[in-house]
């Protein structure tokens, strides 16, 4: 079953990279003790999802969806790009707030290690 799946996956190897990236990010979020590292893991996951959506809009031999002299179809789909621009802003916002919270946690507790924080409770 597994080799069969891999065979099917061949045209979608780009997506496989996305899956690996996603899992690496999730691993960091779960296992890492340092809150900043957890946040980095989250950012890796975000990147994975963005990469996935942008990849889905790609077309073989296509040009970027910016019209102008000499631009010939096929064009990549503009929609995923637009979505991901918004997605990046959302990720930025989340990261900014998370960093702000981490700063406050550090000021209040003197540490940003998850296990030490748990003991403080």
């Amino acid at each position, binding site marked *: 079953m597994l080799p069969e799946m891999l065979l099917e996956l061949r045209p979608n190897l780009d997506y496989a990279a996305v899956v690996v990236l996603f899992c690496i990010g999730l691993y960091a979020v779960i296992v890492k003790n340092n809150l900043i590292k957890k946040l980095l893991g*989250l950012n890796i996951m975000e990147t994975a999802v963005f990469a996935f*959506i942008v990849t*889905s809009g790609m077309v073989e031999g296509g040009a970027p969806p910016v019209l102008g002299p000499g631009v010939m179809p096929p064009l990549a789909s503009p929609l995923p790009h637009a979505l991901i621009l918004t997605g990046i802003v959302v990720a930025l916002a989340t990261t900014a707030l998370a960093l702000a919270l981490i700063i406050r946690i550090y000021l209040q507790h003197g540490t940003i290690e998850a296990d030490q924080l748990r003991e403080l409770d």
Partner: protein
Amino acid sequence: MAAALTVSWSALAAWPHWLIVLILLPLGGAVLTPALYALQRRLVPWWALLVAGLTALTVLPLLWRLAHEGPFSYLPGGWARPYGVELRFDEFAALLAAAVALLAPPVLLFSRRYAARAVPAGRLPFYYTLLLLNLGGLLGLAITADLFNLFVFLEVVSLSAYALVAVGGRPVAELAAFKYLLMGAISSLLILLAVGILFALTGSLNMADVAQRLPALATPAALTLAAAALLVGFMLKAALFPLHNWLPEAHASAPGAVSAVLSGLVVKAGIIGLVRTYQLFAGVELLDTANLGAILVWLGAASVVMGSFFAVFQHDLKLMLAYSTITNIGYIVMGWALASPQAMLGASLHLFNHALIKTTLFLAAGALIYRTGLRTLEELRGIGRTMPLNCAALALGALAIVGVPPTAGFVGKWFIALGALQAGRPFFALVVVFGALLAAVYYVRIINAFYFREPEQKAVVTAREVPWSMLAPVLLLALLCLGIGLLARLPVEFLEPAVARLLDGRS
């Protein structure tokens, strides 16, 4: 006279732009709040209240139109679906919108005096801004008919919610907020991933369009993954057991008015998400929705039992209320997943009623903390003597959440239990009753401590009722807990066709 009134109402409701006004008002109001603070800081609470009040009024013509015409759409930019972003006002959107409309003004009125003490002065304008953003985001999330737009509004809601938890500056709250953020961000990512997969499969983002195109696909694994990612994502947002871990601390450590909004309204965003997921996949034959339903029913039942079970052992009043939210989310999800007309009706009713009741409870608890600074039942013993009105409101809210007839909490549970029997699954009717009993146990503990124990703390003995601008909203909401229970006929009749339509769409 009555006829003239009717005509003018329908003329008013016919104005096509109410739906966009509904979200522009709170969001626009929020955007201007920091600037207003710079000009005239004392006006900010009143400004927020005004914005919330106007938003609440906006819901009225929308409800009128929905009741007379059925669901309707608004197309920003004028692009026909699926090319633009569609906004759509259906009964489930109406439920959440009505809850926001009803609860936002009392919460903001309560906040004026409450936040002045619970929130550091420099953060105050942002407290109001974030509250308005949160409410506006919830409205947007309720009415959007576009998958990606749903994600964007969900983020407005989530980000403001994370920050609101920490706005009071308590160290515990900041830690809880971070935990909440981490879980929330993961759930958002899962949702975005699912949106991406659905987009890759159908090339569309409009929910109705996607739902139409999904049944033609022959990709079981991808569909399952999309459904699963949406389910898990929204379950995390809704704090369904076993993904509830983040909720109690976040809701308990936030300032009282914020807890009310979080527990009453924000978790409902997850429920609305689950409803939308259901609507997306209802017609897909490759994917056995009954199986998904079966899982959700059990998770809902587990939430009911576990939430109550944890709540029984809490000493902190607000933690108790927070665990009770998990229980009630369990009821709603269970009712939905049972998928019989009465159970769905009950779940929809409970979505609204729980918002009302939990807001009452959290505001009343916030008022107690405002006066005494005490949080545990042991410390608050005897508070019923010194703050009788506030405690009476809390007691009424407690009765309602237990589901004592004829309060608002009864109706939803009643229909969920009946619906369980209707679906031929009497075990879940038993769960409803058992959950109500467990709830009775811990709410009796609260009432016992407040009324039948001698005060021990000095702060309790010297406590007075909170100022009227805080007491009035609490009392009003408590009376509504009773009144809406008595008037439950209206929402039942309003929702029945919607539920029938939803179930028809499936078969």
